[in-house]
């Protein structure tokens, strides 16, 4: 756990790195999320103060964008594409399979803290679908069997 003081200092130093930029809040929020894995509620007043915004404005931006998480994610983030080009190759069945396999729905993290499951609308891999993104790696033509192999690789001790 980050101590409260440490969090404020960290957020303040992230803001300082982006000082003077147009629309600094967006790159700052990305950097905060990269550091903590999510945007902690306690960061909101620090961001508001440092960027001369109201807390409501900061809160509004965090909640508008799907990317910004309000709670800590699992060790690995699994995004399953729900858009049309993936639907055309059976992504709905894959989505159901993955939810059953992990025992979680979209927006949830597995009880062991290993996986968070999120929907995504297009990864730009539309000629070789269905697509799944695990952390920063996109995977093409993912069948239920292929997904199980990918999951197994994550569960191995080295992962």
């Amino acid at each position, binding site marked *: 756990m980050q101590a409260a003081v440490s969090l404020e200092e960290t957020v303040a130093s992230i803001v300082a790195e982006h000082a003077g930029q*147009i*629309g*600094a*809040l*967006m*790159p700052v*929020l*990305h950097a905060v999320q990269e550091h903590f894995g999510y945007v902690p509620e306690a960061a909101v007043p620090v961001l508001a103060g440092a*960027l001369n915004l109201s807390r409501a*404005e900061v809160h*509004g*931006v965090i909640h*508008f*964008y*799907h*990317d*910004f998480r309000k709670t800590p994610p699992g060790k690995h983030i699994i995004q399953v594409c729900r*858009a*049309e*080009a*993936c*639907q*055309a*190759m059976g992504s709905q069945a894959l989505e159901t399979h993955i939810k059953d396999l992990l025992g979680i729905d979209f927006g949830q993290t597995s009880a062991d803290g290993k996986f968070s499951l999120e929907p*995504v*609308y*297009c*990864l*730009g*891999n*539309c*000629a*070789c*679908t269905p*697509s799944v*993104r695990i952390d*920063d*790696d*996109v*995977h*093409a*033509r993912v069948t239920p069997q292929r997904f199980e192999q990918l999951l197994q690789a994550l569960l191995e001790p080295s992962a």
Partner: protein
Amino acid sequence: MSVRVYIPQDTTAKALGADGLVAAIVAEAERRNIELEVVRNGSRGAFWLEPLVETEWDGKRYGFGPVSVDDVPALFDGGFPGDTEHPLSLGLVEEIPWLKRQQRLTFERAGLGDPVSIDNYISLGGFEGLQQALQIAPQAIVDAVKESGLRGRGGAAFPTGIKWQTVLDTPDEQKYIVCNADEGDSGTFADRLLMEADPFQLIEGMTIAAVAVGATEGYIYLRSEYPQARTILLAAIAAAETANWLGEDIQGSGKNFRLHLRIGAGAYICGEETSLLDSLEGKRGLVRFKPPLPAIKGLMGKPTVMNNVLSFAAVTTVLARGAAYYKDFGTGRSRGTLTVQLAGNIKRGGLVELAFGHTLRELVEDFGGGSATGRPMRAIQVGGPLGAYLPESQWDVALDYEALAAIKAMLGHGGIVVFDDSVDMAQQARFAMEFCAIESCGKCTPCRIGSVRGVEVIDRIIANDNRAANRQLLDDLCETMIDGSLCAMGGLTPYPVRSALQHFAGDFER
């Protein structure tokens, strides 16, 4: 002498195992004492052949694909990287009919070399357009873009030259160039391919725009779903700065242009230009009322040229080879080349660049080879999630802006998503409304509320709950969304819904 082997670092190639393939090929070559130089090129966009491995002999490129790690020992046994009769051998890459039949301008360089090598870019004709632009008056640049007939490739097809003229004619100390790289439409990947395979072309096009209108700052707004494009763009921008193709006094011209990369945060609506501007300003991505146009009051209220990735890229060709050269491709009011993306349930998916005027059927049958599953194709969605679903009776339509508009469809960003006969079109119509409900910015009521009600009404139609009355209600709702929405999100969502109802009515009455 070591042999040069090319293996793409493109998202789709990597998603199909290109990284593991590099490791396997390097290891196998070491075992056999064969010297290799591996180049991580961009993809040529023939995604059905990825991972496409190429070797270079006497300046000629020979292809193998799609290659998996398991194929590697047998490839070497057959003589790889030299001549081999291996079944995966494709012969000369430029002779592969799927590539040879294309008319590539914007994607001419894609896949030829290391995407972040300036030397490679220049050796393939790069920066000729910018060098030309630096020698002529700003008005002459804008005139060339106007004369080319180039229309915005993002989807709205607004004449690019007119937009630039407006910014040129609006005096201000600070102007901006913004690239819309928020390619959110399902079935599209042309922007991504260009940014990953030939990023300097985008940088060059944006710099030409800056020189034309007198801007000194530029932003690329890239979607967060494209991490590989981000990595490549960052490297390309840094390389361009080092070589003085960006920054202060570009190539001794006295012109300055600083380019910044910004990352979106998963909001489809930020592909709408005014929403994108609000997002760049660090706000929620709400759609703005127009007027004022972004060309007059755009980023931070300043005159702003905002174009799609492919529009900026096309400008480099216009400047390097002349407006007339570009205009000679295409027909009627659709000039230049069209980049179609074959996606979804398609056998030979990928990027096809052709002069405007080819039919949808030619694309999906001749290039695409029909469905991937081998089942009959049934519906084709053209133009992304806001585009109409076309039944087979409409597949002979020419792929240009006007011809598609005439059948209440749209070309959009050129995405073509094929569905086979297992598709349930009532569910696709429902998804169109659901997607709008998830992604609406919420500023206007027809889009924010209409999409939610749309899902409910379609559910009632499917459940045969007062079906006739609900059909009427859905039609009224679609009309309200089309006429009353602030932007294309709410205004076009009814198109896939209505086309599904019109052409696939039986699916709603099962």
